[in-house]
C-alpha cells in the first residue's frame, strides 16, 4: 500500500525530504533557546556581565531567526509536498478510472469513486502534511529536549524519562479504548446519515402517509444512539487532558524539589533549573503531539486503502498487439457466447448465444427485466468481454479491433444515459468533435430533437445543467440518440432509449432511421412491442437465452413469450386490435 502511494510523490520528492529536514532544524534551534536562556541568567545576570547578555541575546535572536526561516520553509515545502501529492493522487486515480472497464466501474459504484476522489484524497493530503511536518518534529523535539535536559543534569532529567514512559503507556491505553468506541460510532453515524438521505429522497412517501412524526421519532432514537456512543468514546479521550496535566505538574514539582536540593548542594545553578522546567513542557507536549498523530494516521489508513484500490485496479479489457483500425461492415455474429459478470462465478448471464445479423438490418430485442437484453448488446462494443465463445463485428472478433475504432463504429445509447454540463452543441459534439453546426442539426432532425431545441430561446446554444436536469426525460433521450448518430456508426444500439418518448415520436424516429441511415445495423431494445414490431427481425430474450428470433409475424405465430407480451399490451379492445395486428 505504501509503495503504491509513494510512487505518486514524484516531482514532490525533494519537497517531501526538505520539509522534515527544516522541521527538525527548527526544533534544534528551538531547543537551543532555553539553553542560551540559562546562560543569560547564570553567566550574565548573576555575574553582572551585561556584555554577556548582549552576546548571548544576539545568539538567541539569531537562533530565533534561523528557527523562523526553517519554520517558514518547512511550512512552504510541507504545503507544496502535500498539496502536490494530493494533486498527483487525484490525477492518477482519475486517469486510471478512464481506463476502467465497465466491470470495474460496476465494482466501485459512482458514489464510491466520488468519495475516493474527494474526501479520501483530502484526508490523505492532511495526513501527509501532518506526517512530514510533525512525525519527525515531535520525536526529534522530544529527543533534543531530553538530550539537553540530560546534558544539564542527568539525575534530574531521569525524572522526565520516567514521566514519558509512564505517560506513553497511559496514553496508549486511553487511545486504544477510545478507538474501540469510535470504530463502533462511525458505522452508526453512517446509518444516521443514510436514514436522513432516505427521508430526503422519499419525502413524498413520508408526507403522503403523514409519517412526519413517526420519522422524527425514528431519527431521534438514532441520534440518541449516536449521542450515547460518542459520549462513551469522548469520555475516554477526555482522560488525556487530566493525565497529561497531572504528569506535567508532578514533573514541575518534583524538579523544583530535587532541583532546590541540588542548588543548595551546589550541583545545579538556578539558570539550569529554569531551563529544565522549560524542557519539561517541550518533552511532554511532543509526546501528546505524537499520540494525536497516531490517532490521525490510523484514521487515514482507511482512506489510503480505498485510494490504493482504485490505483491498483487494472482494466482487463486491453488493446490487442496489432489492432485492426477498420471495421469493414455492420454485420454481427455471436458464436456460442457465454457470459458472466464475475469471472469465477458459475452463474452465467448469457448461455450459448448464437446469432447472425446482416449489415443494415434492423433488429428489435424484447424480453422481461433481467432477461439479459442489455448484457447481450454490451458485448458488441466490447464493454465487457465474453467468458466463452466470440462476438464478431464485420467478420472479425471484437477483441482484434482497436477499442476506440470499435466503439466509434458501434455506437451505444445506454439505458442510463447522461448529458454533461455545457451547451447542446457541445454535448452533441461528444459524438464527433469536428462536426459542424449543420451536421449537428441534421442528426437532431433524425432523432426528432430539432423540434424542441428550436423552441428553446437559445436553440442549439442552450446550456444543459449538470445531469441534464433542465430537459425532460424524453428530450434527454432524443439528445443522446442524436449524439450517438453524430459518430456515423456502422452499428447503432439503442438500449431502451426511447422509453420516455411518446409512441408517436418514437415511431417517427424509427421511420427516419429506416430512410436516412439504411446501411447502419440497428439494434433496438424496447419494452413496447410497437417499438420493435416493424423491425426486420426480433430477438426474444428469456433468462439469458434466445427464446425466439424472427419477424413479428413468425414470432406471433411461434413464440409464446412474444405472443404473451404482445397480447398484454394490446388486448382488451375490439376492432382496434386486429388493425394493430395487421400493421
Amino acid at each position, binding site marked *: 500500500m505504501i509503495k503504491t502511494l509513494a510512487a505518486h510523490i514524484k516531482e514532490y520528492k525533494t519537497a517531501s525530504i526538505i520539509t522534515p529536514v527544516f522541521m527538525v532544524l527548527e526544533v534544534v534551534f528551538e531547543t537551543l533557546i532555553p539553553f542560551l536562556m540559562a546562560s543569560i541568567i547564570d553567566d550574565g545576570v548573576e555575574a553582572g556581565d551585561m556584555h554577556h547578555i548582549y552576546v548571548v541575546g544576539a545568539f538567541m535572536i539569531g*537562533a*530565533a531567526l534561523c528557527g523562523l526561516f*526553517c519554520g517558514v520553509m518547512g511550512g512552504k515545502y510541507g504545503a507544496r509536498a502535500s498539496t502536490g501529492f494530493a494533486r498527483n493522487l487525484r490525477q492518477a486515480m482519475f486517469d486510471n478510472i478512464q481506463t476502467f472497464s465497465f466491470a470495474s466501474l460496476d465494482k466501485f459504484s459512482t458514489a464510491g469513486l466520488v468519495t475516493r476522489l474527494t474526501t479520501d484524497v483530502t484526508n490523505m493530503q492532511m495526513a501527509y502534511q501532518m506526517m512530514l511536518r510533525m512525525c519527525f518534529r515531535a520525536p526529534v523535539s522530544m529527543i533534543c529536549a531530553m538530550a539537553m535536559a540530560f546534558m544539564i543534569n542527568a539525575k534530574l532529567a531521569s525524572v522526565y524519562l520516567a514521566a514519558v514512559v509512564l505517560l506513553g503507556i497511559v496514553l496508549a491505553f486511553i487511545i486504544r479504548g477510545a478507538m474501540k468506541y469510535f470504530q463502533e460510532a462511525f458505522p452508526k453515524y453512517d446509518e444516521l446519515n443514510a436514514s436522513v438521505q432516505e427521508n430526503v429522497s422519499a419525502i413524498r412517501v413520508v408526507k403522503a402517509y403523514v409519517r412526519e412524526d413517526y420519522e422524527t421519532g425514528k431519527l431521534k432514537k438514532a441520534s440518541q444512539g449516536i449521542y450515547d456512543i460518542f459520549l462513551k468514546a469522548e469520555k475516554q479521550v477526555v482522560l488525556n487532558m487530566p493525565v497529561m496535566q497531572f504528569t506535567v505538574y508532578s514533573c514541575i514539582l518534583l524538579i523544583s524539589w530535587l532541583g532546590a536540593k541540588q542548588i543548595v548542594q551546589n550541583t545545579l545553578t538556578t539558570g539550569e533549573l529554569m531551563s529544565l522546567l522549560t524542557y519539561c513542557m517541550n518533552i511532554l507536549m511532543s509526546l501528546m503531539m505524537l499520540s494525536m498523530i497516531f490517532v490521525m494516521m490510523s484514521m487515514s489508513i482507511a482512506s489510503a486503502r480505498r485510494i490504493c484500490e482504485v490505483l491498483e485496479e487494472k482494466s482487463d479489457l486491453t488493446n490487442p498487439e496489432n489492432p485492426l483500425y477498420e471495421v469493414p461492415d455492420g454485420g454481427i455474429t455471436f458464436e456460442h457466447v457465454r457470459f458472466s459478470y464475475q469471472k469465477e462465478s458459475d452463474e452465467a448471464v448469457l448461455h450459448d448465444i448464437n446469432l447472425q445479423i446482416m449489415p443494415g438490418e434492423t433488429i428489435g430485442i424484447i424480453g422481461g427485466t433481467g432477461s439479459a437484453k442489455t448484457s447481450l448488446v454490451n458485448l458488441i462494443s466490447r464493454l465487457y468481454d465474453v467468458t466463452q465463445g466470440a462476438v464478431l463485428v464485420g467478420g472479425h472478433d471484437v477483441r482484434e479491433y482497436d477499442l476506440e475504432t470499435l466503439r466509434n463504429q458501434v455506437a451505444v445509447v445506454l439505458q442510463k444515459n447522461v448529458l454533461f454540463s455545457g451547451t447542446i452543441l457541445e454535448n452533441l459534439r461528444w459524438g464527433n468533435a469536428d462536426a459542424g453546426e449543420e451536421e449537428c442539426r441534421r442528426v437532431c432532425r433524425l432523432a426528432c430533437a430539432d423540434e424542441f431545441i428550436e423552441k428553446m430561446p437559445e436553440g442549439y446554444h442552450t446550456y444543459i445543467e449538470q445531469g441534464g436536469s433542465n430537459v425532460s426525460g424524453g428530450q434527454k433521450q432524443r439528445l443522446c440518440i442524436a449524439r450517438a448518430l453524430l459518430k456515423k456508426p456502422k452499428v447503432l444500439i439503442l438500449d431502451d432509449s426511447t422509453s420516455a418518448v411518446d409512441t408517436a415520436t418514437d415511431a417517427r424516429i424509427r421511420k427516419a432511421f429506416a430512410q436516412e441511415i439504411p446501411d447502419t445495423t440497428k439494434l433496438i431494445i424496447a419494452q413496447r412491442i410497437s417499438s420493435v414490431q416493424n423491425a426486420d427481425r426480433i430477438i426474444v430474450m428469456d433468462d439469458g437465452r434466445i427464446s425466439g428470433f424472427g419477424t413479428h409475424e413468425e414470432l406471433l405465430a411461434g413464440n409464446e413469450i412474444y405472443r404473451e407480451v404482445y397480447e398484454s399490451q394490446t388486448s382488451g379492445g375490439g376492432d382496434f386490435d386486429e388493425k394493430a395486428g395487421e400493421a
Partner: protein
Amino acid sequence: MPGPGMRRGMPKGKRIENPGKVFKRLMKYVAKNYAPHLVLTAVLILISVLANVQGTLFIQSLIDDYIEPMLVADKADFGPLAGAIARVAGFYLIGVAAAYAWNRIMINVTQGTLRNMRNDLFSHMETLPIKYFDTHAHGDIMSTYTNDTDTLRQMISQSMPQVFNSFITIVSVFISMVVLSIPLTLVTLVMIAVMLVVTKKVAGLSSRYFLEQQKNLGKVNGYIEEMMNGQKVVKVFCHEKESIEEFRALNDALYESADKANYLVNVVGPVNMQLGNVSYVVCAIVGGALALSGMTGLTLGKLASFLTFNKSFNGPINQVSQQFNSIVMAMAGAERIFKMMDEAPEVDDGYVTLVNVREEAGKLVETPERTGRWAWRHEHQADHSVDYVEVRGDVVFDGVDFGYNDDKMVLHDVKLYAQPGQKIAFVGSTGAGKTTITNLINRFYDIQDGKIRYDGINVNKIKKADLRRSLGIVLQDTHLFTGTVMENIRYGKLDATDEEVVAAAKLANAHGFIKRLPEGYDTVLSGDGANLSQGQRQLLAIARAAIADPPVLILDEATSSIDTRTERIVQDGMDKLMAGRTTFVIAHRLSTVKNSDCIMVLEQGRIIERGTHDQLLEEKGKYYQLYTGNAIAN
C-alpha cells in the same frame, strides 16, 4: 421525474453575511439547554487557569523565597519548601480536577447540542413543503447534516473552550505580569502588537487564497461528480483523453491555490512562535539590564517568573489565531443550518378533520373507536355548528390554474369530476402536467386559481394530515425504508397486526415472493430496497397503500419501469386494490389505462380530450395517435 427540475443550491465557500449574528444565535441555541453547564464550565476553566497561574507564580517564589534564603543560610532548611510544594500540589490537583470536569461537561454539551440540532433540523425538515425538496439539491441538504454539523462539533467542543481558556489565561497572565514588572509588560505588549499585525496580514492573505481554494475545490468536486456519473458514457464515446485533459486543468488550478493557502496557514504558526521567542529574548535583555541596575526592584526570581509568563502569554494568542479558521468554517456551517431551520414550513390552516363515525338513527355520530367508516368533521367558522360528511372519494377540479412559479403556469383551466369508485386516467407526453395534477389533490403544491373539492369540501379547508391520510399514493420511484418487509408494509398503517399485513400483501400479489425471501416477512431491506427487483419493490409499495385502505388512490406511473410480463402480476394486485375506490392513474402504457371510466388526455397543461377508451378512439384525435403510434406529422 416528478415536479420541476432541480436547481443547484448555494455554492459553498460563500461569505457569511453576518458572522456576529450567527455566533450569537448559535450561543443562544447552545445555552437553551445547557446554560448551567456553560456557566459551570466557565467557572471550572477559571479555576484550572488560576491553578496553573499560581503554579507559575510559585516558580518565582521557588528561587527568591526558598532557594536563595537556603543558599545564604548556614544550614539549609527544606521544611518551608516542602510545605510550599505541598500547597502548590494541592492547588494543582484542584486545577487538574477542574480541567477534567469542564472537559467532561463539554462532551455532554457538544454531543447534546449536536443531537438536539439534528433532531430539530430533521423535525423541521419534515414540515417543509415538497417544493423545498424539489428546488434544493439533495446533496446540499445532506451536507447540512454531515459537513455542517461536523464543523460545529469542532467549534463547540474545541474552539469555544479554547478561546475562553485563552482569554482567561491572557487576562490573568497580564495581571500577573503587571504586578511583576510594568516596563517588561510594556515590552511584551509591543511584541504582541507586532504579532497581531503580522498574523492579520498573513491571515488576510491566506483567506484570499483559501476562498480561491474552496472555489477550485468546488469545481474539481463538481467535475468529478459529473464525470463519475457519466463514466460509462465517456467510455462509449472514447472521450477519456479529453476528460483527462479537462480534469488536469482543474486539478492543477486547485493545486496552485491549495499550495499557497496551505503555505500561508503553515507560516502563521512558526512566525508567531519565533516572534514569541524574540519577545522572550528582548524581555530577557531588558529585564537583565533592569535587574542589574537594581532600579525597579526587579529580582532575578521575578525576572524568571516574568519570562515564564511571557511564554504563556504568547501561547494562547497563538492558539486563538490558529482557531480562527475553524471558527470561520463553523460559522459558515451554522449559517446554513439556521437557514434551513428558518425555511417556512408548510402552511396548514385547514380545520376540517377526519374522524371515525357510527351511524345512529340515520345520522353520523363521531366515535373514538375504529369503525372503518370515516367522515369529515366540518366545524363551520361562522356559527361553530358541526357537520359530518361521509368520506366517499368524490373529487372535483374546477377551473384550476397552477404553476410551480407564479410566472409560468403549468396547468390551465383544468376541470374534472371523479365520482366515488371511478377510475380516472391521465395520459399525455412527458411534461404535459400529469404528475402535477396529482400533486395538487394531496396539496403537495397549492393552486393559484380555481377550486379543488373533496366530498364537496374545498381541500384548502381540510387539515393537510387528514387529507393525505385519506389518499393512498403509489409512485413511479418506489421508495422503501431500511427495515423489514413487515415494517415496510406496516408503514401504511402503524397499528396494523401481522395478519393485516399478510392480508395486504396477499391482496397486492406480494405474498408469494415475500414467502420465498430468505427470512420471509422479516427480511431486512436496505438501501431503498436495493436487494429486491423493481417489480417486487412495486408490489410492496402497493401492499403498503393497500393496508392504509384509503378511499382515494393515486397511481403515478406505478408500473412504468416494470416489463410487461411482470406488470401483469402487479396489475392484478392493483386491480384488486382499486376496486371500490376512486383512483387516479397516470401511465405511459396505454394498455394500463384502457379500462378506465374516463381518460383525460393532457397536452401542455390543458385537458384536450376526455372520454372512455372507445370514445377516444372514435374521435381519432391525440389519443388515437398515441395509442396507435401513427402520428400525423404536425
